[in-house]
């Protein structure tokens, strides 16, 4: 079956087809996924499980769970890992490049336009008018994080943790990286102790 298919497309190497498909799949995910990586996961699922059948439901679920255990942007972790899993090192590079380069170029284009005309007063006012909208977007994101915190800890404990974080970072001006590293240590210390005992 596979041989028949490849002999039909006499000019096309199967490896090349695979790379073209990886490129197309993650290009579509990148260009259609509004709202950052987490909101593009259903699109990745559509391409990888439904369309190209590179993974079954279970493997995709495992990959997603695995990606969630690691820090960093989720969209590129998924793209890079799936590219690697399907077509090795170059598959990984391919998937990453098609998912980030087009959107970075769009950023340069749009922000370049704003920069080029930024000395005209009404253009200045345009970019100033965006600031409150971003404040609202960040406020909504804040609310989501607070709501999820209270769902997993309960209101009282969540409020205490929020207050503690506020004091550490905004009053004592401890770098967020240190605070997050502290969280990592607190969570994994009991695990290490338990393993030593066993």
């Amino acid at each position: 079956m596979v041989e028949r298919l490849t002999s039909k497309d006499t000019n096309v190497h199967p490896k090349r087809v695979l790379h073209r498909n990886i490129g197309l799949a993650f290009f579509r995910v990148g260009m259609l996924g509004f709202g950052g990586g987490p909101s593009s996961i259903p699109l990745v699922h559509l391409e990888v499980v439904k369309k190209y059948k590179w993974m079954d439901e279970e493997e995709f679920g495992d990959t997603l769970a695995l990606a969630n255990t690691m820090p960093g942007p989720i969209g590129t972790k998924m793209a890079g890992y799936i590219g690697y899993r399907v077509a090795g090192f170059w598959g990984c590079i391919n998937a990453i490049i098609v998912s980030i380069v087009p959107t970075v170029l769009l950023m340069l284009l749009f922000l370049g336009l704003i920069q080029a005309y930024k000395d005209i007063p009404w253009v200045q006012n345009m970019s100033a008018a965006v600031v409150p909208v971003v404040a609202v977007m960040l406020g909504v994101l804040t609310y989501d994080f607070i709501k999820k915190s209270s769902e997993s800890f309960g209101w009282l404990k969540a409020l205490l943790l929020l207050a503690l974080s506020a004091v550490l970072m905004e009053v004592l001006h401890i770098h967020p990286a240190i605070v997050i590293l502290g969280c990592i240590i607190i969570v994994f210390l009991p695990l290490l102790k338990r393993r030593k005992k066993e």
Partner: protein
Amino acid sequence: MIYWQLFIAFFIPGILGYGGGPSSIPLIEHEVVGKYGWMNTQEFSEVVAIGNSLPGPIATKMAGYIGYEEAGILGSIVALFATVAPSLIMMIGMMAVLMKYKDAPEVKNLTRLIRPVIAILLAFMTIQFAQESVAGIGLGSTIFLMVASLLLLEKFKVHPAFVIVLALIFGAITG
């Protein structure tokens, strides 16, 4: 030197941003605006606004753009590499070990415990942006734009890109 700074500025959010790209926005702001002063709050808010309006992963859009602004194409590549590579390499390299721990309660606890930290970072960024807006376009316009965009985004579920375009039009007309 600038390349090393760019690497560190994006490596830290990349390696500590649990919960995907959006949770690394305040960490990126901390480095880019707070620590290195490459941008002021308004410039950074333009990057977030345009980033939110365009498709694709948010952290890499910001890294690619800020890297390019500071140090050209190579800067862009360095910032993107620092954002993407560390966690991806860890994921591919530690696949076998991680598979064992993917359902461990500690992993879920970690994401839970970091959430309030990110919430506070986001909350203070929100306040900072609101203050910046009042300084830029005045209290009246700020309140109007904030209420209008909150209603459009959350109540009427209008796409963020469209809300940004409306804000740009409002700015052009009132300017």
